């Protein structure tokens, strides 16, 4: 009896141990984070751990009893099963596992044979390692690598393009007929092209990286360095004379990046010596021709005058009319010759004005009065609006300013039809006096307004009117006003009239007045 009790106790202990072992095995199997299967030698799944259930979304009863190939790429898994059974194990083979929704999940497979106590193969354990994240990371890495490669390729391409552009630009600069100098952001010479070397008679190697003050030490460069100054302010087509018969037009352009970062300054030297010579020759010819023409025209004028005044004997009414017409035509020719002479003087830089403090209002009134008769003949009302207060005295060259006022009023009267109105107004403030000549005449077409102050400009509409004019009046006027430090501008609308304005500065400071002399 005691023996039986002992056996029962032993059995009870064994059962307890078995239950503990089962619990341990179950916990261990359940804890294991990687999917594990037990597969029979015929390829049927006999056991699956919770990790496999989780990764596939299937329940145990949907897994156990099913062929292993149902969950993987069939052919590949069949090969792996065969390999496992023949080799005893495999490790790290990649294959796609399919979950319940048929999504392919990349996994790494390892297997190990399971044998019974007789050494017979009863199947194999199959462990999986989910490669989804590592594949994603790998793919991300590959994408990043590809992106990086693309960036590098783009950068290399951009670099090559930039290099090519640089070479092109360099070639253009080096072969440019104009002289080009490039100063860097520290205002040191970074590049000089062969044309500039030739024009300045200097070798690049001697002056490269030189500052303005250092360049100033080289003979022949002084006019350039003086014009550039140390601040490299913008210059547009400024003439500098390097030596006799070598006149350069100097322009500077700041080299900017993003509008606010200055990389340096580009200096362009354009040889205008030949143009200047031709211009001078032309001016000399015009001047010579004008002078040569003026003498006989003056003789004709006085002869006509003597005839008209009867100094050479009585003339009939009919003869007088012919002589008067000839006299006026001769006068127009003299006027044209005078305009041409003024033009040549302006172009030769000899049109210097002789300033003196003058009463501007009286001067304007004088010119207005001289046009009253002509205006009346054309039935044009000529109005002169003075200022309420007294205009300040202005320093001016009376002869030239009269000519400027005359040109503006002459145009207004000439291009205003009968019955029109020409208004001359004065205005002033503490800095300047202003004259405006307003008419309600033919106006200037909009597309031609930019050329109004050019030499020989005549509006297409006024040419059709068969009016007289050299096209030099406004060019001369502009030069006169600007020579006085003033400004000239206009507003105009075709068939509605024009208003021309100019201002002349009023110098109040005694010192600045003295500087002019």
């Amino acid at each position, binding site marked *: 009896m005691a023996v039986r009790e002992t056996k029962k106790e032993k059995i009870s202990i064994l*059962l307890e141990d*078995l*239950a503990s072992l*089962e619990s341990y095995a179950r916990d261990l199997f359940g804890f294991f984070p990687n999917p594990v299967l*037990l597969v*029979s*030698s*015929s*390829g*049927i799944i*006999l*056991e699956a751990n919770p990790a496999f259930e989780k990764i596939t979304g299937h*329940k*145990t*009863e949907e897994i*156990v*009893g*099913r*062929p292993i190939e149902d969950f993987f790429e069939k052919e590949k898994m069949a090969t792996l099963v065969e390999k496992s059974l023949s080799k005893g194990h495999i490790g790290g083979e990649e294959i796609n596992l399919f979950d319940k929704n048929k999504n392919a999940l990349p996994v790494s497979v390892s297997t190990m044979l*399971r044998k*019974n106590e007789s050494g*017979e193969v*009863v*199947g194999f354990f199959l462990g999986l390692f989910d490669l989804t994240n590592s594949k994603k990371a790998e793919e991300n890495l590959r994408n990043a690598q590809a992106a990086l490669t693309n960036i590098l390729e783009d950068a290399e391409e951009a670099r090559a393009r930039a290099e090519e552009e640089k070479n092109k630009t360099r070639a253009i600069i080096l072969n440019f007929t104009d002289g080009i100098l490039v100063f860097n952001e520290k205002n040191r010479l970074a590049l000089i092209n062969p044309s500039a070397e030739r024009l300045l008679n200097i070798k690049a190697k001697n002056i490269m990286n030189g500052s303005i003050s250092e360049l100033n030490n080289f003979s022949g460069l002084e006019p350039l360095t003086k014009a550039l100054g140390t601040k490299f302010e913008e210059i547009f087509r400024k003439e500098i004379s390097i030596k006799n018969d070598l006149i350069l037009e100097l322009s500077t352009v700041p080299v900017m990046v993003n509008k606010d970062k200055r990389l340096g300054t580009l200096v362009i030297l354009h040889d205008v010596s030949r143009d200047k010579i031709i211009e001078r020759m032309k001016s000399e010819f015009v001047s010579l021709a004008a002078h040569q023409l003026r003498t006989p025209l003056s003789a004709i004028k006085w002869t006509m005058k003597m005839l008209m005044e009867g100094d050479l004997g009585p003339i009939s009414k009919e003869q007088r009319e012919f002589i008067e017409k000839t006299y006026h035509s001769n006068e127009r020719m003299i006027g044209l010759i005078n305009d041409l002479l003024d033009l040549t003087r302006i172009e030769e830089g000899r049109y210097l004005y002789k300033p003196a403090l003058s009463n501007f209002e009286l001067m304007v009134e004088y010119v207005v009065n001289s046009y009253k008769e002509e205006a009346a003949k054309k039935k044009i009302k000529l109005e002169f609006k003075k200022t309420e207060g007294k205009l300040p005295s202005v320093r001016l060259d009376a002869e030239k300013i009269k000519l400027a006022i005359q040109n503006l009023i002459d145009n207004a009267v000439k291009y205003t039809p009968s019955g029109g109105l020409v208004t001359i107004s004065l205005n002033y403030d503490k800095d300047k006096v202003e004259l405006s000549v307003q008419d309600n005449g033919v106006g200037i077409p909009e597309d031609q307004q930019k050329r109004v102050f050019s030499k020989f400009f005549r509006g297409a509409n006024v040419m059709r009117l068969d009016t007289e004019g050299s096209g030099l009046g406004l060019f001369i006027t502009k030069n006169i006003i600007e020579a006085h430090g003033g400004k000239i501008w206009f507003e105009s609308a075709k068939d509605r009239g024009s208003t021309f304005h100019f201002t002349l500065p009023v110098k109040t400071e005694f010192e600045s007045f003295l500087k002019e002399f």
Partner: protein
Amino acid sequence: MRENDPSSKNKVGEIKEDEVKKIMKVKIETRGVVLKTDGEYILEKEGEKGLKQLEAELKRLGHPIKYREIETMAFYPAGLRALSLLAIKKTFNFDDEKIQEMGVVATKKSLIIKLFIRYFLSVQKVFFEEAPRIWQKHWTKGILTPLKLNEEKKYAILKLENFDLHPLYCSVYLPGYFSGILQMLIKTNKITAQETKCSFRGDEYHEYLLKWL
């Protein structure tokens, strides 16, 4: 119609006290694993609430079972196994197909089957060597004998003698259980198992025909 006639399987009525007494008088014992797999199945399908309902029904019948406290390898009265099935059928209105499915699922979770897996070398071996042993591991009574195995024609016949528990078990649950084991041996999608002879129908023993495609 006899009291335990399998044709009563479609009826879900109150389990009578007499029937409970009769079932509990059966002098057979079974391993706790068969009860454990019932509890796990209900927990999964009906949740915690379902498991409590089931335990309440068994308590009402006078034979309470705490499924979580069942020891897998310990022996329990076989009557409890039959009562567990009857209570499940009644509580959740399970049809025979569902009870049979319980048998299939039980094989896939049973610890005893897991212990036998190492001997699942071939259908032949499992049928002629392991099946009787598997039965003995579960029950203190009854002899399971393989009568025929024809792998070519894809069928097998099993004989179960000296085992009278309840028709719900032998005619419905057990065919499912045999199917489950067969699934682990043969690669096929279609397995059928049916009881062709039954001691509750006047036969001398139970006979099962297993077929697969």
